[in-house]
């Protein structure tokens, strides 16, 4: 199954990168931009054993996010799992 993970800075955590890009966009003529947050997008393919439940895959991906893909102290994550 294909997994897409989105990692973004936690709400309330300073995102210097997002803030700098937000300041740069109007200089190029893009007005009305706000709340720029810059994160990471991770794609991966997961081979689950035959008969594994969607819940098992979900738990596995969640664990990956917690332990490696995101830093839960400063980052939020969401993910989507495509069956098949």
């Amino acid at each position, binding site marked *: 199954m294909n997994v897409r993970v989105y990692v973004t800075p936690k709400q309330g955590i300073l995102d*210097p*990168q997002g803030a*700098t890009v937000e300041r*740069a966009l109007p200089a190029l003529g893009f007005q009305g931009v706000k709340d720029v947050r*810059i994160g990471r997008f991770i794609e991966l393919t997961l081979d689950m054993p035959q008969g594994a439940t969607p819940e098992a895959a979900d738990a596995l991906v969640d664990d990956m996010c917690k332990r490696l893909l995101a830093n839960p102290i400063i980052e939020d994550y969401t993910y989507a799992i495509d069956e098949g």
Partner: protein
Amino acid sequence: MSAATEPVRFGLVVFPGSNCDTDAFQAVATFPGATARYLWHKDTGFDDIDAVILPGGFSYGDYLRCGAIARFSPIMDAVRGFAGDGGLVLGICNGFQILAEAGLLPGALIRNTCLTFVCRYVNLRVETTATPFTSACTPGERPRIVVKHNEGNYTADPETLARMKANDQIVLRYVDAAGEPTDAANPNGAVESIAGVCNEGRNVFGMMPHPENSVEDGLAGGTDGRCIFRSMIDHVLAARAAHGAGAGGDASRPAAAAGGAR
């Protein structure tokens, strides 16, 4: 006659986050025949400049991508015009990254293969002296200069690389003490150990190592970086002498710099 005695005027572009601008300023000042002045990133043009340096540092914090925001600074239009008119443009480290982002140099600089910042003295090999930036070097000379970067891993597609080789645009490579471009001597994983390249017109040059930190005796960096500045100064003086012969009284203003502001 005055052309030979007028100092060669360097313009150093200061972006927010530039941090080797003062080092480059000082490096230029160690050459008796040269002067330096800062150019602010919001300026739309400049006059009376013989050579432009985009210094190292972290313009805009290196956020998004190195050089990605700086390339849109107002001054970059002027730099592009200056380069288009044949003016000398040297990009050091972050300056190289900006020139690549701006399309003034081929290729791109990506994350070091070691995934960490690297500050280390490297041996370089001068691959061609047929540029205004290396003409004072001897062919095969091996200056030892510091690199310090996160994203110094030069990359270009095979067609571009082939074209660059055909045009003799690969100017510096990382080599070991024996002069071989080995993997161990390559600090960042750059393709074919490339440390510096020039454009087809040979008047725009980008290099990851920092020659401005290797110009003074008594400091840790040594003096191996002087050859780069020496070459640029010699080139400007030679061009001036050539133009000056026909340009009469206005010899101090080289043709290359005249179209800078627009």
